[in-house]
Protein backbone atom coordinates (compact mmCIF):
# COMPACT_ATOMS: atom_id res chain seq x y z
CA UNK A 1 0.00 0.00 0.00
CA UNK A 2 2.93 2.37 -0.55
CA UNK A 3 4.12 4.34 -3.49
CA UNK A 4 7.57 3.48 -4.76
CA UNK A 5 8.23 7.03 -5.77
CA UNK A 6 7.76 9.43 -2.94
CA UNK A 7 8.70 13.00 -2.47
CA UNK A 8 11.19 14.04 0.15
CA UNK A 9 10.32 17.18 1.91
CA UNK A 10 10.83 17.98 5.53
CA UNK A 11 7.98 20.34 6.23
CA UNK A 12 5.43 19.98 3.44
CA UNK A 13 3.71 16.72 4.52
CA UNK A 14 3.03 18.15 7.96
CA UNK A 15 1.60 21.31 6.45
CA UNK A 16 -0.65 19.23 4.20
CA UNK A 17 -1.88 17.19 7.14
CA UNK A 18 -2.31 20.13 9.46
CA UNK A 19 -5.88 21.22 8.55
CA UNK A 20 -7.38 17.76 8.87
CA UNK A 21 -5.42 16.87 12.00
CA UNK A 22 -6.44 20.16 13.62
CA UNK A 23 -10.14 19.65 12.88
CA UNK A 24 -9.93 16.02 13.98
CA UNK A 25 -8.18 16.90 17.23
CA UNK A 26 -10.57 19.67 18.17
CA UNK A 27 -13.86 18.14 17.09
CA UNK A 28 -13.15 14.45 17.41
CA UNK A 29 -10.49 13.55 19.95
CA UNK A 30 -11.27 16.29 22.42
CA UNK A 31 -15.03 15.48 22.56
CA UNK A 32 -14.44 11.73 22.56
CA UNK A 33 -11.98 12.07 25.44
CA UNK A 34 -14.43 14.39 27.17
CA UNK A 35 -17.16 11.76 26.86
CA UNK A 36 -14.90 9.09 28.35
CA UNK A 37 -13.84 11.44 31.15
CA UNK A 38 -17.35 12.62 32.00
CA UNK A 39 -18.67 9.10 31.99
CA UNK A 40 -16.71 8.38 35.19
CA UNK A 41 -17.62 11.65 36.94
CA UNK A 42 -20.61 12.78 38.89
CA UNK A 43 -21.20 16.53 39.38
CA UNK A 44 -22.23 17.52 42.93
CA UNK A 45 -25.78 18.87 43.32
CA UNK A 46 -24.67 22.50 43.09
CA UNK A 47 -22.46 21.99 40.07
CA UNK A 48 -19.31 23.27 41.84
CA UNK A 49 -17.29 20.15 41.61
CA UNK A 50 -17.01 16.80 39.88
CA UNK A 51 -16.46 13.68 41.86
CA UNK A 52 -14.79 10.57 40.45
CA UNK A 53 -17.31 7.76 40.67
CA UNK A 54 -15.66 4.98 38.69
CA UNK A 55 -18.09 2.89 36.73
CA UNK A 56 -21.13 3.80 38.77
CA UNK A 57 -22.63 5.88 35.93
CA UNK A 58 -22.55 2.74 33.81
CA UNK A 59 -23.92 0.69 36.65
CA UNK A 60 -26.67 3.23 37.05
CA UNK A 61 -27.78 3.37 33.42
CA UNK A 62 -27.46 -0.36 32.88
CA UNK A 63 -29.84 -0.96 35.75
CA UNK A 64 -32.09 1.90 34.67
CA UNK A 65 -35.41 0.51 33.50
CA UNK A 66 -35.85 3.33 30.98
CA UNK A 67 -32.44 2.77 29.44
CA UNK A 68 -33.08 -0.93 28.98
CA UNK A 69 -36.44 -0.02 27.53
CA UNK A 70 -34.69 2.28 25.03
CA UNK A 71 -32.42 -0.64 24.07
CA UNK A 72 -35.48 -2.74 23.36
CA UNK A 73 -37.16 0.08 21.43
CA UNK A 74 -34.02 0.57 19.35
CA UNK A 75 -33.80 -3.15 18.59
CA UNK A 76 -37.43 -3.33 17.44
CA UNK A 77 -37.20 -0.06 15.54
CA UNK A 78 -33.94 -0.92 13.74
CA UNK A 79 -34.99 -4.42 12.74
CA UNK A 80 -38.32 -3.20 11.37
CA UNK A 81 -36.79 -0.29 9.47
CA UNK A 82 -34.02 -2.47 8.06
CA UNK A 83 -36.34 -5.28 7.05
CA UNK A 84 -39.10 -3.15 5.50
CA UNK A 85 -36.82 -0.87 3.53
CA UNK A 86 -34.53 -3.66 2.31
CA UNK A 87 -37.38 -5.97 1.32
CA UNK A 88 -39.22 -3.23 -0.57
CA UNK A 89 -36.03 -2.08 -2.26
CA UNK A 90 -35.10 -5.63 -3.29
CA UNK A 91 -38.55 -6.20 -4.74
CA UNK A 92 -38.38 -2.97 -6.75
CA UNK A 93 -34.80 -3.63 -7.85
CA UNK A 94 -35.65 -7.11 -9.13
CA UNK A 95 -38.58 -5.65 -11.05
CA UNK A 96 -36.56 -2.73 -12.43
CA UNK A 97 -33.79 -5.10 -13.49
CA UNK A 98 -36.23 -6.99 -15.71
CA UNK A 99 -37.87 -4.20 -17.65
CA UNK A 100 -36.34 -2.66 -20.72
CA UNK A 101 -38.91 -0.07 -21.65
CA UNK A 102 -38.80 2.90 -19.29
CA UNK A 103 -36.00 1.44 -17.19
CA UNK A 104 -34.30 4.82 -16.73
CA UNK A 105 -37.51 6.61 -15.86
CA UNK A 106 -38.31 4.06 -13.16
CA UNK A 107 -34.79 4.30 -11.81
CA UNK A 108 -34.90 8.09 -11.53
CA UNK A 109 -38.35 8.05 -9.95
CA UNK A 110 -37.22 5.53 -7.36
CA UNK A 111 -33.93 7.16 -6.40
CA UNK A 112 -34.95 10.80 -6.12
CA UNK A 113 -36.53 10.50 -2.64
CA UNK A 114 -32.96 9.90 -1.44
CA UNK A 115 -32.58 13.68 -1.47
CA UNK A 116 -35.27 14.15 1.19
CA UNK A 117 -33.76 14.78 4.62
CA UNK A 118 -34.94 12.44 7.39
CA UNK A 119 -36.45 15.39 9.27
CA UNK A 120 -38.30 16.58 6.15
CA UNK A 121 -39.53 13.02 5.61
CA UNK A 122 -40.88 13.19 9.17
CA UNK A 123 -42.77 16.41 8.44
CA UNK A 124 -44.22 15.03 5.20
CA UNK A 125 -45.39 11.83 6.89
CA UNK A 126 -46.95 13.76 9.76
CA UNK A 127 -48.85 15.81 7.20
CA UNK A 128 -50.18 12.60 5.68
CA UNK A 129 -50.85 10.69 8.89
CA UNK A 130 -51.89 13.26 11.50
CA UNK A 131 -55.33 12.31 12.87
CA UNK A 132 -56.82 15.79 12.46
CA UNK A 133 -55.89 16.66 8.87
CA UNK A 134 -53.96 13.72 7.38
CA UNK A 135 -55.41 12.18 4.24
CA UNK A 136 -54.30 8.62 5.01
CA UNK A 137 -55.46 9.03 8.61
CA UNK A 138 -58.86 10.05 7.27
CA UNK A 139 -59.21 6.96 5.09
CA UNK A 140 -58.12 4.74 7.95
CA UNK A 141 -60.86 6.30 10.04
CA UNK A 142 -63.35 5.68 7.24
CA UNK A 143 -62.22 2.06 7.13
CA UNK A 144 -62.99 1.83 10.82
CA UNK A 145 -59.44 1.80 12.16
CA UNK A 146 -58.87 3.86 15.30
CA UNK A 147 -55.59 5.46 14.32
CA UNK A 148 -54.07 7.65 17.02
CA UNK A 149 -50.28 7.96 17.04
CA UNK A 150 -50.33 10.81 19.56
CA UNK A 151 -51.70 8.54 22.27
CA UNK A 152 -50.99 4.98 21.17
CA UNK A 153 -47.33 3.95 21.44
CA UNK A 154 -47.64 1.14 18.90
CA UNK A 155 -49.15 3.48 16.33
CA UNK A 156 -46.40 6.04 16.96
CA UNK A 157 -43.79 3.31 16.46
CA UNK A 158 -45.46 2.23 13.21
CA UNK A 159 -45.36 5.83 12.06
CA UNK A 160 -41.64 6.44 12.69
CA UNK A 161 -40.76 3.02 11.28
CA UNK A 162 -42.65 3.69 8.04
CA UNK A 163 -41.23 7.17 7.54
CA UNK A 164 -37.66 6.00 8.29
CA UNK A 165 -37.95 2.95 6.07
CA UNK A 166 -39.47 5.01 3.25
CA UNK A 167 -36.52 7.39 3.27
CA UNK A 168 -34.01 4.56 2.98
CA UNK A 169 -35.65 2.61 0.11
CA UNK A 170 -33.96 4.67 -2.61
CA UNK A 171 -30.51 4.00 -1.22
CA UNK A 172 -31.06 0.26 -0.89
CA UNK A 173 -32.64 0.13 -4.34
CA UNK A 174 -29.58 1.66 -5.95
CA UNK A 175 -27.21 -0.87 -4.39
CA UNK A 176 -29.46 -3.86 -5.06
CA UNK A 177 -29.86 -2.80 -8.68
CA UNK A 178 -26.09 -2.48 -9.09
CA UNK A 179 -25.70 -5.90 -7.48
CA UNK A 180 -28.30 -7.46 -9.77
CA UNK A 181 -26.74 -5.99 -12.87
CA UNK A 182 -23.39 -7.51 -11.92
CA UNK A 183 -24.83 -11.05 -12.03
CA UNK A 184 -23.81 -12.72 -15.31
CA UNK A 185 -26.81 -13.10 -17.61
CA UNK A 186 -25.57 -16.47 -18.81
CA UNK A 187 -26.23 -18.02 -15.38
CA UNK A 188 -29.83 -16.88 -15.40
CA UNK A 189 -30.34 -17.92 -19.00
CA UNK A 190 -28.87 -21.36 -18.34
CA UNK A 191 -31.26 -21.84 -15.45
CA UNK A 192 -34.17 -20.71 -17.60
CA UNK A 193 -33.23 -23.21 -20.31
CA UNK A 194 -33.21 -25.91 -17.64
CA UNK A 195 -36.78 -24.94 -16.94
CA UNK A 196 -36.43 -22.90 -13.76
CA UNK A 197 -39.18 -20.30 -13.39
CA UNK A 198 -38.80 -16.76 -12.10
CA UNK A 199 -39.17 -17.62 -8.42
CA UNK A 200 -36.87 -20.64 -8.52
CA UNK A 201 -34.21 -18.62 -10.34
CA UNK A 202 -34.49 -15.83 -7.77
CA UNK A 203 -34.30 -18.18 -4.81
CA UNK A 204 -31.48 -20.42 -5.98
CA UNK A 205 -29.32 -18.14 -8.13
CA UNK A 206 -30.02 -14.44 -7.83
CA UNK A 207 -30.50 -14.13 -4.08
CA UNK A 208 -27.39 -16.14 -3.11
CA UNK A 209 -25.27 -14.18 -5.58
CA UNK A 210 -26.59 -10.94 -4.11
CA UNK A 211 -25.52 -11.88 -0.60
CA UNK A 212 -22.45 -9.58 -0.45
CA UNK A 213 -24.69 -6.62 -1.33
CA UNK A 214 -27.35 -7.76 1.12
CA UNK A 215 -24.87 -8.10 3.93
CA UNK A 216 -23.30 -4.74 3.24
CA UNK A 217 -26.73 -3.08 3.19
CA UNK A 218 -27.66 -4.82 6.42
CA UNK A 219 -24.80 -3.09 8.23
CA UNK A 220 -25.47 0.27 6.60
CA UNK A 221 -29.18 0.10 7.37
CA UNK A 222 -28.65 -0.78 11.00
CA UNK A 223 -26.27 2.17 11.32
CA UNK A 224 -28.85 4.36 9.57
CA UNK A 225 -31.65 3.24 11.87
CA UNK A 226 -29.47 3.82 14.93
CA UNK A 227 -28.13 7.27 14.14
CA UNK A 228 -29.64 9.07 11.19
CA UNK A 229 -33.28 8.56 12.11
CA UNK A 230 -32.99 11.08 14.94
CA UNK A 231 -34.54 13.70 12.62
CA UNK A 232 -37.55 11.51 11.88
CA UNK A 233 -38.20 10.76 15.54
CA UNK A 234 -37.64 14.31 16.73
CA UNK A 235 -40.03 15.84 14.19
CA UNK A 236 -42.72 13.17 14.43
CA UNK A 237 -43.03 11.96 18.01
CA UNK A 238 -40.27 13.52 20.15
CA UNK A 239 -39.69 10.07 21.56
CA UNK A 240 -43.26 9.74 22.78
CA UNK A 241 -45.94 9.07 23.62
CA UNK A 242 -44.50 7.99 26.95
CA UNK A 243 -41.02 7.00 25.70
CA UNK A 244 -42.49 4.49 23.24
CA UNK A 245 -40.30 5.79 20.38
CA UNK A 246 -37.24 6.81 22.44
CA UNK A 247 -34.26 5.15 20.79
CA UNK A 248 -30.74 5.15 22.23
CA UNK A 249 -29.58 8.18 20.26
CA UNK A 250 -32.74 10.06 21.12
CA UNK A 251 -32.15 9.28 24.78
CA UNK A 252 -28.58 10.61 24.67
CA UNK A 253 -30.03 13.85 23.34
CA UNK A 254 -32.95 13.93 25.78
CA UNK A 255 -30.82 13.18 28.86
CA UNK A 256 -27.92 15.40 27.85
CA UNK A 257 -29.70 18.48 26.56
CA UNK A 258 -33.21 18.37 27.96
CA UNK A 259 -32.49 16.57 31.23
CA UNK A 260 -28.95 18.00 31.71
CA UNK A 261 -27.76 14.72 33.22
CA UNK A 262 -24.26 14.86 31.76
CA UNK A 263 -22.72 11.89 33.54
CA UNK A 264 -25.45 9.53 32.42
CA UNK A 265 -25.52 10.99 28.91
CA UNK A 266 -21.74 10.61 28.60
CA UNK A 267 -21.91 7.01 29.77
CA UNK A 268 -24.61 6.37 27.16
CA UNK A 269 -22.37 7.95 24.51
CA UNK A 270 -19.57 5.61 25.49
CA UNK A 271 -21.86 2.60 25.17
CA UNK A 272 -23.00 3.83 21.75
CA UNK A 273 -19.36 4.25 20.70
CA UNK A 274 -18.82 0.60 21.58
CA UNK A 275 -21.85 -0.38 19.48
CA UNK A 276 -20.60 1.60 16.47
CA UNK A 277 -17.09 0.23 16.81
CA UNK A 278 -18.56 -3.24 16.74
CA UNK A 279 -20.57 -2.47 13.59
CA UNK A 280 -17.47 -0.99 11.95
CA UNK A 281 -15.38 -4.02 12.76
CA UNK A 282 -18.04 -6.30 11.31
CA UNK A 283 -18.13 -4.16 8.19
CA UNK A 284 -14.36 -4.09 7.78
CA UNK A 285 -13.98 -7.81 8.19
CA UNK A 286 -16.62 -8.30 5.56
CA UNK A 287 -14.94 -5.86 3.16
CA UNK A 288 -11.67 -7.69 3.63
CA UNK A 289 -13.42 -10.91 2.70
CA UNK A 290 -14.94 -9.37 -0.38
CA UNK A 291 -11.58 -8.14 -1.57
CA UNK A 292 -10.06 -11.60 -1.29
CA UNK A 293 -12.41 -13.65 -3.40
Amino acid sequence: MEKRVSFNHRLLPYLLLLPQLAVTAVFFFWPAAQALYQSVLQPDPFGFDNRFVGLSNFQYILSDRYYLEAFGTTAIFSSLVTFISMATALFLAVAADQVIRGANAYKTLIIWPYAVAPAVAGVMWIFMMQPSIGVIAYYMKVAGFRWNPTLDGTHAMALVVLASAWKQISYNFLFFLAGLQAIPRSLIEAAAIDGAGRWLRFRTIIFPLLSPTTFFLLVVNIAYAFFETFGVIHTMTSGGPGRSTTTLVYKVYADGFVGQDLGSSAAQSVILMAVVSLLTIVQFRYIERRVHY
Partner: protein
Amino acid sequence: MVERRGIGTILTHLALILGVAVLCFPIYLAFVGSTLSHDEILSVPMPLWPGGQMVENYSQALAAGTQVPVARMLFNSMVMAIGIAAGKIIISILSAYAIVYFRFPFRMLAFWAIFMTLMLPVEVRIVPTYEVAASLGMLNSYSGLILPLIASATATFLYRQFFLTVPEELAEAARVDGAGPVRFFKDILLPLSRTNTAALFVILFIYGWNQYLWPLLVTTRPEMNTVVIGLQQMMPSADDYGNWPVTMAAAILAILPPVAVVVFMQRLFIKGLIESEK
Protein backbone atom coordinates in the same frame (compact mmCIF):
# COMPACT_ATOMS: atom_id res chain seq x y z
CA MET B 1 -34.14 -10.72 -20.08
CA VAL B 2 -35.24 -14.27 -20.38
CA GLU B 3 -38.98 -13.94 -20.68
CA ARG B 4 -39.69 -11.16 -23.10
CA ARG B 5 -43.43 -11.34 -23.50
CA GLY B 6 -46.46 -12.37 -21.64
CA ILE B 7 -48.29 -11.56 -18.51
CA GLY B 8 -45.08 -11.47 -16.43
CA THR B 9 -43.76 -8.35 -18.10
CA ILE B 10 -47.05 -6.53 -17.66
CA LEU B 11 -47.14 -7.52 -14.00
CA THR B 12 -43.58 -6.27 -13.55
CA HIS B 13 -44.53 -2.90 -14.99
CA LEU B 14 -47.62 -2.77 -12.80
CA ALA B 15 -45.54 -3.55 -9.71
CA LEU B 16 -43.04 -0.84 -10.61
CA ILE B 17 -45.74 1.74 -11.26
CA LEU B 18 -47.39 0.89 -7.97
CA GLY B 19 -44.04 1.09 -6.17
CA VAL B 20 -43.19 4.44 -7.71
CA ALA B 21 -46.65 5.76 -6.83
CA VAL B 22 -46.37 4.70 -3.20
CA LEU B 23 -42.81 6.04 -2.97
CA CYS B 24 -43.66 9.41 -4.47
CA PHE B 25 -47.01 9.90 -2.76
CA PRO B 26 -45.74 11.64 0.41
CA ILE B 27 -43.83 14.17 -1.68
CA TYR B 28 -46.73 14.62 -4.08
CA LEU B 29 -49.10 15.22 -1.18
CA ALA B 30 -46.73 17.79 0.31
CA PHE B 31 -46.71 19.54 -3.04
CA VAL B 32 -50.51 19.48 -3.21
CA GLY B 33 -50.63 20.85 0.34
CA SER B 34 -48.36 23.70 -0.67
CA THR B 35 -50.83 24.83 -3.35
CA LEU B 36 -54.01 24.82 -1.26
CA SER B 37 -55.56 27.57 0.79
CA HIS B 38 -55.75 27.31 4.55
CA ASP B 39 -59.46 26.39 4.44
CA GLU B 40 -59.02 23.78 1.72
CA ILE B 41 -56.31 22.02 3.70
CA LEU B 42 -58.50 21.87 6.78
CA SER B 43 -61.50 20.43 4.95
CA VAL B 44 -61.68 16.71 5.57
CA PRO B 45 -60.55 14.94 3.49
CA MET B 46 -58.32 17.50 1.85
CA PRO B 47 -58.29 17.59 -1.97
CA LEU B 48 -55.75 15.38 -3.73
CA TRP B 49 -55.36 17.73 -6.66
CA PRO B 50 -53.27 20.95 -6.63
CA GLY B 51 -55.18 24.12 -5.81
CA GLY B 52 -54.71 27.71 -6.90
CA GLN B 53 -52.76 29.17 -3.97
CA MET B 54 -49.31 28.13 -5.08
CA VAL B 55 -47.85 31.57 -5.78
CA GLU B 56 -49.27 33.07 -2.57
CA ASN B 57 -48.02 30.23 -0.35
CA TYR B 58 -44.55 30.11 -1.81
CA SER B 59 -44.04 33.84 -1.77
CA GLN B 60 -45.30 34.01 1.81
CA ALA B 61 -42.93 31.21 2.81
CA LEU B 62 -39.93 32.75 1.05
CA ALA B 63 -40.50 36.29 2.22
CA ALA B 64 -42.01 35.82 5.67
CA GLY B 65 -42.14 32.19 6.79
CA THR B 66 -43.68 31.87 10.22
CA GLN B 67 -40.76 33.31 12.23
CA VAL B 68 -37.91 33.74 9.78
CA PRO B 69 -38.17 33.99 5.98
CA VAL B 70 -37.47 30.65 4.33
CA ALA B 71 -35.20 32.48 1.88
CA ARG B 72 -32.87 33.28 4.78
CA MET B 73 -32.89 29.66 5.97
CA LEU B 74 -32.25 28.38 2.44
CA PHE B 75 -29.23 30.68 2.33
CA ASN B 76 -27.97 29.27 5.63
CA SER B 77 -28.42 25.70 4.36
CA MET B 78 -26.61 26.57 1.16
CA VAL B 79 -23.65 28.04 3.06
CA MET B 80 -23.54 25.03 5.35
CA ALA B 81 -23.84 22.41 2.58
CA ILE B 82 -21.25 24.05 0.34
CA GLY B 83 -18.99 24.73 3.32
CA ILE B 84 -19.10 21.11 4.43
CA ALA B 85 -18.58 19.75 0.92
CA ALA B 86 -15.76 22.12 0.01
CA GLY B 87 -14.13 21.98 3.45
CA LYS B 88 -14.11 18.22 3.60
CA ILE B 89 -12.76 17.91 0.07
CA ILE B 90 -9.96 20.40 0.67
CA ILE B 91 -8.69 18.99 3.95
CA SER B 92 -9.08 15.43 2.71
CA ILE B 93 -7.31 15.73 -0.61
CA LEU B 94 -4.36 17.47 1.08
CA SER B 95 -3.97 14.92 3.85
CA ALA B 96 -4.46 11.97 1.50
CA TYR B 97 -1.73 13.41 -0.71
CA ALA B 98 0.61 13.67 2.27
CA ILE B 99 -0.12 10.12 3.40
CA VAL B 100 0.25 8.47 0.00
CA TYR B 101 3.11 10.41 -1.55
CA PHE B 102 5.45 11.28 1.32
CA ARG B 103 7.62 9.37 3.75
CA PHE B 104 7.97 11.11 7.05
CA PRO B 105 8.14 10.32 10.76
CA PHE B 106 4.76 9.69 12.42
CA ARG B 107 3.13 9.01 9.07
CA MET B 108 1.27 5.95 10.34
CA LEU B 109 0.27 7.77 13.51
CA ALA B 110 -1.31 10.55 11.45
CA PHE B 111 -2.98 7.94 9.27
CA TRP B 112 -4.60 6.19 12.21
CA ALA B 113 -5.51 9.41 13.99
CA ILE B 114 -7.51 10.42 10.93
CA PHE B 115 -9.02 7.02 10.23
CA MET B 116 -10.24 6.57 13.78
CA THR B 117 -12.92 9.11 12.92
CA LEU B 118 -14.41 6.72 10.39
CA MET B 119 -15.86 4.86 13.33
CA LEU B 120 -17.81 7.45 15.27
CA PRO B 121 -20.56 9.58 13.75
CA VAL B 122 -21.19 12.95 15.34
CA GLU B 123 -24.47 11.71 16.85
CA VAL B 124 -22.54 9.50 19.24
CA ARG B 125 -20.33 12.20 20.75
CA ILE B 126 -22.92 14.92 20.44
CA VAL B 127 -22.96 16.34 23.97
CA PRO B 128 -19.18 16.82 24.37
CA THR B 129 -18.88 18.13 20.80
CA TYR B 130 -21.50 20.70 21.67
CA GLU B 131 -19.53 21.72 24.76
CA VAL B 132 -16.37 22.12 22.69
CA ALA B 133 -18.17 24.26 20.13
CA ALA B 134 -19.75 26.33 22.89
CA SER B 135 -16.45 26.92 24.67
CA LEU B 136 -14.90 28.04 21.38
CA GLY B 137 -17.73 30.56 20.96
CA MET B 138 -18.98 28.87 17.80
CA LEU B 139 -22.69 28.71 18.59
CA ASN B 140 -24.87 30.49 16.05
CA SER B 141 -22.05 30.82 13.54
CA TYR B 142 -21.37 29.30 10.16
CA SER B 143 -18.04 27.93 11.34
CA GLY B 144 -19.89 26.20 14.19
CA LEU B 145 -22.29 24.65 11.69
CA ILE B 146 -19.55 23.51 9.34
CA LEU B 147 -16.31 22.64 11.12
CA PRO B 148 -17.42 19.86 13.50
CA LEU B 149 -19.07 18.04 10.59
CA ILE B 150 -15.97 17.97 8.43
CA ALA B 151 -14.07 16.02 11.10
CA SER B 152 -14.51 12.71 9.34
CA ALA B 153 -12.29 10.51 7.29
CA THR B 154 -14.60 9.18 4.58
CA ALA B 155 -13.33 11.57 1.93
CA THR B 156 -9.69 11.10 2.96
CA PHE B 157 -10.15 7.37 2.62
CA LEU B 158 -11.61 7.78 -0.85
CA TYR B 159 -8.78 9.99 -2.09
CA ARG B 160 -6.22 7.64 -0.61
CA GLN B 161 -7.75 4.72 -2.51
CA PHE B 162 -7.80 6.75 -5.69
CA PHE B 163 -4.20 8.00 -5.37
CA LEU B 164 -3.02 4.43 -4.88
CA THR B 165 -4.43 3.57 -8.32
CA VAL B 166 -2.62 6.45 -10.05
CA PRO B 167 0.30 4.95 -12.06
CA GLU B 168 3.72 5.34 -10.44
CA GLU B 169 5.16 6.45 -13.77
CA LEU B 170 3.38 9.77 -13.55
CA ALA B 171 5.16 10.75 -10.38
CA GLU B 172 8.45 9.40 -11.72
CA ALA B 173 8.09 11.36 -14.94
CA ALA B 174 7.21 14.49 -13.03
CA ARG B 175 10.30 14.10 -10.87
CA VAL B 176 12.55 13.45 -13.84
CA ASP B 177 11.19 16.60 -15.44
CA GLY B 178 12.05 18.50 -12.31
CA ALA B 179 8.56 19.10 -10.98
CA GLY B 180 8.37 19.43 -7.22
CA PRO B 181 5.60 18.02 -5.03
CA VAL B 182 3.45 21.16 -5.24
CA ARG B 183 3.70 21.28 -9.01
CA PHE B 184 2.90 17.56 -9.31
CA PHE B 185 -0.15 17.96 -7.10
CA LYS B 186 -1.45 21.03 -8.88
CA ASP B 187 -0.80 20.03 -12.49
CA ILE B 188 -1.25 16.25 -12.45
CA LEU B 189 -3.03 14.88 -9.42
CA LEU B 190 -5.71 17.54 -9.11
CA PRO B 191 -6.87 17.32 -12.76
CA LEU B 192 -6.82 13.51 -12.56
CA SER B 193 -9.14 13.54 -9.54
CA ARG B 194 -11.66 15.86 -11.14
CA THR B 195 -14.47 13.32 -11.63
CA ASN B 196 -13.95 11.83 -8.19
CA THR B 197 -14.03 15.27 -6.64
CA ALA B 198 -17.23 16.19 -8.47
CA ALA B 199 -18.93 12.96 -7.38
CA LEU B 200 -17.80 13.48 -3.82
CA PHE B 201 -19.01 17.06 -3.85
CA VAL B 202 -22.49 15.95 -4.91
CA ILE B 203 -22.74 13.41 -2.08
CA LEU B 204 -21.32 15.73 0.55
CA PHE B 205 -23.61 18.54 -0.54
CA ILE B 206 -26.67 16.36 0.09
CA TYR B 207 -25.16 15.11 3.36
CA GLY B 208 -24.56 18.67 4.54
CA TRP B 209 -27.93 19.97 3.40
CA ASN B 210 -29.80 17.21 5.23
CA GLN B 211 -28.03 17.50 8.59
CA TYR B 212 -30.40 17.76 11.52
CA LEU B 213 -29.16 17.03 15.02
CA TRP B 214 -26.04 19.19 14.90
CA PRO B 215 -27.65 22.37 13.49
CA LEU B 216 -30.53 21.87 15.93
CA LEU B 217 -28.11 22.23 18.83
CA VAL B 218 -25.71 24.81 17.44
CA THR B 219 -28.25 27.32 16.21
CA THR B 220 -30.38 28.89 18.91
CA ARG B 221 -31.11 32.13 17.06
CA PRO B 222 -33.89 31.59 14.48
CA GLU B 223 -32.09 33.59 11.80
CA MET B 224 -29.21 31.10 11.87
CA ASN B 225 -31.50 28.07 11.37
CA THR B 226 -31.02 25.85 8.37
CA VAL B 227 -34.15 25.15 6.38
CA VAL B 228 -34.47 21.59 7.70
CA ILE B 229 -34.46 22.84 11.30
CA GLY B 230 -36.70 25.80 10.47
CA LEU B 231 -39.22 23.44 8.91
CA GLN B 232 -39.56 21.49 12.13
CA GLN B 233 -40.25 24.73 13.97
CA MET B 234 -42.83 25.82 11.41
CA MET B 235 -44.75 22.58 11.74
CA PRO B 236 -48.04 23.08 13.56
CA SER B 237 -48.25 21.03 16.74
CA ALA B 238 -50.90 18.36 17.14
CA ASP B 239 -53.47 20.61 18.77
CA ASP B 240 -53.35 23.73 16.64
CA TYR B 241 -53.97 24.13 12.95
CA GLY B 242 -51.00 26.40 12.34
CA ASN B 243 -50.24 27.22 8.76
CA TRP B 244 -49.88 23.94 6.92
CA PRO B 245 -49.89 25.37 3.36
CA VAL B 246 -46.89 27.62 4.08
CA THR B 247 -45.16 24.83 6.00
CA MET B 248 -45.58 22.48 3.05
CA ALA B 249 -44.30 25.15 0.67
CA ALA B 250 -41.23 25.38 2.91
CA ALA B 251 -40.90 21.57 2.83
CA ILE B 252 -40.91 21.55 -0.97
CA LEU B 253 -38.39 24.40 -1.05
CA ALA B 254 -36.23 22.48 1.42
CA ILE B 255 -35.98 19.42 -0.80
CA LEU B 256 -35.61 21.27 -4.09
CA PRO B 257 -31.82 21.82 -4.13
CA PRO B 258 -30.83 18.25 -3.16
CA VAL B 259 -33.48 16.80 -5.49
CA ALA B 260 -32.14 18.90 -8.34
CA VAL B 261 -28.67 17.57 -7.59
CA VAL B 262 -29.85 13.94 -7.60
CA VAL B 263 -31.91 14.27 -10.78
CA PHE B 264 -29.63 16.43 -12.90
CA MET B 265 -26.31 15.02 -11.76
CA GLN B 266 -27.51 11.45 -11.53
CA ARG B 267 -24.39 9.87 -12.97
CA LEU B 268 -22.07 11.68 -10.57
CA PHE B 269 -24.48 11.06 -7.71
CA ILE B 270 -24.54 7.30 -8.26
CA LYS B 271 -20.78 7.17 -8.72
CA GLY B 272 -20.24 9.14 -5.53
CA LEU B 273 -22.69 7.11 -3.51
CA ILE B 274 -21.35 3.75 -4.56
CA GLU B 275 -17.69 4.73 -4.22
CA SER B 276 -18.03 6.44 -0.87
CA GLU B 277 -19.34 3.20 0.58
CA LYS B 278 -16.65 0.88 -0.73
